[in-house]
C-alpha cells in the first residue's frame, strides 16, 4: 500500500488516503462482481422465464420452486451456505467465485420474474399477428415477443442492476476484498468508523448515480417501440 494509514492519521487526510484502497476494491471486485453476475444472472433469468411460461410441467415446476426458494431466503444466508456451508461436504469454493454463484442465482430468480411479467404484458394481438403469418410459438417468442419484452423490462432490470451494486457489499462477509471490506479493514485499524463508512456510502452513491443517468438515457431510446 502506498499510504500508511494508522490510528493517528487525521480526518481529512484519512478520508483522502482511504479513497485509493476503496476505489481499488470497487474496481477489482465490486464492479466486476456486479457486471459478471448481472450478465450471467440475466441469461439464467431468460432460461427460467422460458421454463415458467412453458406448457411442460417438467420445465415449469423446477423453475417455480427455484424462484420461490431464492426469493424466500435471505441473500446473506445463501452466501453463507455456499462459502461456509459447502466446505463441510468437501466442496470448498473461493470467496470471489462463491459470491459470483450466490449473486447470479439471486439475479436469475428476481430478473426471471421481471422478464416473465414483461412477456405477459405484450398484447395478445402480437402473438396472433405472428401466428397469422405462419410463425410457430417459439419463432414468435424469439422474433416478436422477446424483443418487445426486453424493452419493457429495461426499467425494472436497471433497478435490479443498481440494487445489485449495493448488495455486493454483502460479499465483504465472505472475505471478498471489495469496496466495503476495504472500508472495514481500514476502520479496524483507525477506529474512525463514521468517517470511513460514510466514505464508502458516498462511493456507492456516486456509482449508482452514474448508473441511473445511463438508465435514463437507455430508457428514453427504447420505450418507443413497444405495442400499446
Amino acid at each position, binding site marked *: 500500500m502506498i499510504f500508511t494509514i494508522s490510528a493517528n492519521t487525521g480526518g481529512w487526510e484519512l478520508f483522502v488516503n482511504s479513497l485509493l484502497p476503496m476505489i481499488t476494491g470497487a474496481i477489482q471486485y465490486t464492479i466486476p462482481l456486479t457486471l459478471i453476475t448481472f450478465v450471467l444472472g440475466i441469461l439464467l433469468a431468460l432460461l427460467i422465464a422460458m421454463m415458467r411460461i412453458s406448457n411442460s410441467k417438467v420445465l415449469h415446476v423446477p423453475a417455480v420452486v427455484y424462484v420461490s426458494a431464492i426469493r424466500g431466503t435471505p441473500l446473506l444466508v445463501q452466501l453463507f451456505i455456499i462459502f461456509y456451508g459447502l466446505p463441510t461436504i468437501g466442496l470448498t469454493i473461493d470467496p470471489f467465485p462463491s459470491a459470483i454463484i450466490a449473486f447470479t442465482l439471486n439475479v436469475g430468480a428476481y430478473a426471471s420474474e421481471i422478464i416473465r411479467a414483461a412477456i405477459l404484458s405484450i*398484447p395478445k*394481438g402480437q402473438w396472433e399477428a405472428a*401466428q397469422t*403469418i*405462419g410463425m410457430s410459438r417459439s419463432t414468435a417468442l424469439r422474433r416478436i415477443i422477446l424483443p*418487445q419484452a426486453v*424493452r419493457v423490462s429495461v426499467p425494472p432490470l436497471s433497478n435490479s442492476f443498481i440494487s445489485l451494486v449495493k448488495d455486493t457489499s454483502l460479499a465483504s462477509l465472505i472475505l471478498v476484498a471489495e469496496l466495503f471490506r476495504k472500508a472495514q479493514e481500514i476502520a479496524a485499524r483507525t477506529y474512525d468508523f463514521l468517517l470511513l463508512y460514510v466514505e464508502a456510502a458516498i462511493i456507492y452513491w456516486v456509482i449508482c448515480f452514474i448508473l441511473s443517468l445511463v438508465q435514463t438515457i437507455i430508457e428514453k431510446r427504447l420505450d418507443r417501440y413497444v*405495442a400499446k
Partner: protein
Amino acid sequence: MFLSIKSLAKSFGDNQVLKDIDVNIEKGKVLSIIGPSGSGKTTLLRCLNSLEEPDKGIFTFNDGLTLDFEKKISKQEILKLRQKSGMVFQSYNLFPHKTAFENVTEGPLIVQKRKKAEVKELAEELLEKVGLKDKMNLYPHQLSGGQQQRVGIARALAMEPELMLFDEPTSALDPELIGEVLTVIKGLARDNWTMVIVTHELQFAGEVSDEVLFMDGGYIVEQGSPQQVLKSPKEARTQQFLQRILNPA
C-alpha cells in the same frame, strides 16, 4: 368455389357464439359480413384462420383439403389451414419494433425462408400497391392509423394467401382516414382477390361485395347480393339492423 363450410359451431364455455353456420366462399369473390355487436362475426373469421378452433364443422377447400373439426385435427392440418388465409386486424397489430418494410418481409423471410432479394422486391411492390413506398423505413409509431392498417394489409398479402380476411379494418380509424384503407381493399377486389370482410361500412360493403351476409345471435339470418340484403332485406331482423345503422336515434 374456394371453400365450403358446413355446420360450423363454436362455444366459449356456455356461450354458444356460432350455431350451425353454412357458408360458401367463392374464388375471386368478396363476401361481406355485417351484423350487430356480439353476433359472432369476428369469431367466424378467426375460425377461418384457426385463431379459434371450431367445436364442430367441416371445411372443404377446392384443392381437396378437408378438415372435420369433430375429429382430431393434426398440427400439420392447422398449419395448412392457416397458410391459406391472411388476416387483417381491427387494431392492426403491427410489430412495433420493426419498420413497415420489416413488418412485410418478416413472414416471407423467416417463415417461408425465401431469398432476400426476392422478398425485398415483393415488399417494395406491395408497399407501393398500398401507397406507402416512401414510408417503408418508418416504424409503426411514426405512421397514422390509416397508414398502419395499409402496412397490415401489405404484411398479410406478402404471404401470398389464397384468401384475405378483414376484421373491421377501419373501425379503429378516424373518419378522415377510413377512405384510404377502403380504397386499397377495393383495389384488391378489382384484382380478384378472394376476400371475407367484416365491416360496419354499409356503403362500402355495397360497392365492394359480391355477396353480403347478415349475422345475428350466432346464426346467418340472411345472405344474398348486396342489392338484395342491403336494399331490400327479407328478414325483419335485417331490416331492424339496417334501420338502426342508417338512422341512429
